[in-house]
């Protein structure tokens, strides 16, 4: 198992949101988390990444217990996270955003920057421009590029296609597949459930802070009950 969360309980302050969420992903797989608004999908990612206190349950990454580890140590271990909103440094240039992704590295990472530009060609021309001036799709590229700078084995993405036009959406999905093809495991939260489950090895349906269904992406797509309640018929 690359990552394995068991019976997670976590929330904001006194308020508990996750009520025993479990999920597991093998190395190199794509996992997709879907569910209605407010189900606790983002909260799950934040709890995995050490941004919220986990009060009960455990997180294992690569065999080691990382429950309540700091984000910084998780980044060092090879996990990175792209939040849903405000996920680029707006006043920093594209290039500087990527460098910040590599903050924990002390080696020469110039070849990685080149790889990111190869993966996201539009960024190459904009390298000196503040990320805040880019379009929505390009920002998403910067955000993903920043997260890839540590050569993670697991990439957490929170709604990477939110607010993008359909054309850009397909582009983002293709890029996620391309990233995955290099051996990076991806755990993403998505609103476009059908499209996302279509590329998923594993799917997790959450509601009210609990797992409702867990299966392969294809089986979930085929399940009439999932389709009725969570895929809009």
């Amino acid at each position, binding site marked *: 198992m690359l990552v394995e969360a068991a019976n997670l309980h976590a929330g904001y302050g006194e308020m508990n949101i996750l009520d025993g969420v479990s999920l597991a992903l093998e190395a190199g797989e794509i996992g997709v988390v879907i569910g209605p608004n407010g189900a606790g999908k983002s909260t799950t990612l934040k709890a995995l*990444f050490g*941004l919220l206190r986990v009060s009960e349950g455990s997180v294992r990454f690569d065999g080691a217990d990382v429950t309540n580890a700091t984000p*910084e140590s998780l980044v060092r271990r090879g996990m*990175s996270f792209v939040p849903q909103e405000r996920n680029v440094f*707006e006043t920093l240039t594209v290039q*500087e955003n990527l460098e910040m992704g590599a903050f924990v590295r002390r080696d020469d990472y110039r070849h990685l920057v080149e790889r990111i530009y190869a993966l996201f060609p539009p960024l190459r021309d904009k390298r000196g421009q503040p990320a805040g001036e880019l379009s929505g799709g390009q920002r998403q590229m910067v955000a993903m590029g920043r997260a890839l700078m540590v050569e993670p084995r697991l990439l957490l993405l929170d709604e990477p296609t939110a607010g993008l036009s359909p054309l850009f959406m397909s582009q983002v999905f293709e890029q996620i597949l391309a990233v995955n093809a290099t051996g990076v495991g991806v755990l993403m939260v998505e609103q476009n459930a059908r499209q996302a489950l279509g590329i998923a090895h594993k799917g997790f349906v959450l509601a009210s802070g609990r797992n409702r269904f867990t299966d392969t992406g294809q089986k979930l797509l085929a399940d009439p009950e999932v389709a009725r309640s969570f895929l809009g018929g």
Partner: protein
Amino acid sequence: MNELVFFVNKVLVAGTVIGSIYALGAVGVTLVFGILRFAHFAHGDLMTAGAFAALAGAAGLHALGVSTPLPIGFVALPLAMIATALLAMGLDRTFYRPLRERGARPIVLVMASIGVTLMLQGLVRLFAGTAPRSFFTGERKDIFHIALPFDLADRPIIVTEPQVLLVLLTAAAVVALHYFLTRSRLGKAMRATSDNADLARVSGIDTELVARTTWIIAGGLAAAGGTMLSLDVTLKPDLSFSLLLPIFAAAIVGGVGQPYGAIAGGFLVGFAETLSVFNWSVLLRVLAPVLPETVEIPTKLAFVPPEYKIVVPFFILVVVLVWRPTGIFRGRVL
């Protein structure tokens, strides 16, 4: 022409000097405000403490028999900057970091910084008394009279050695800061944290390291500002409150979290102060021959009497908050 020289001395020289001091203070305030997200009220006392450290260092050097062509207080400045940087880091560790880790509201940190202000003030006055001190007890302050090469002006432009050093130092600090923030890994991380602290944490940036670096820079620059001000005039233990408002005004005018804005803001506030207290009738008197007899030029025509100088930064602050709270350099409104 003499009137113009008067203007240069009273406004240009004085404005540059006080503007540099404000800029050195405001950079620290804006960095702390942007990165640690609270208005640091103890900054004026950090400046005073830095000046006292320089005074102590100068006394030490003097006792060792060191004698230099530069003012000895200036020679002691690096020591004072290091000491104040350490002090700032220690204050953060003892008083601010525990609150930060508890997730206290920013305003609680503002209050804590006021507590720190009082403690520093109490300590400084306890150990150093309340009387003003001069750096120039064992040596003379060099004063440069720059005579102008034309006959109309028989009065010279007057600049003192500490003033020249101050301007050079400020320029050097600005350049160094620019290179640090745009070229170094840590400097970029500071800008990133100021831009988006949550994302900085997510990216694996060591935010405590960034906080420490911020305090080192803020403390060092505060010591430089406080020392240079004391070299220019005298070292007053109760100087901090009168510095605080102009420095905050400068930081906010420049846009919170924008170091270059803070520098511009410092000079803006400095020049606004000197221009407001300047007696404009001196310049108007030149016009007397061409004006009709009936127009009487008042002998005193300043916007603000010197004793109300504090109104100027406040006025600037209010105007900015009303008209453009992000400041001229588009900082943030927290």
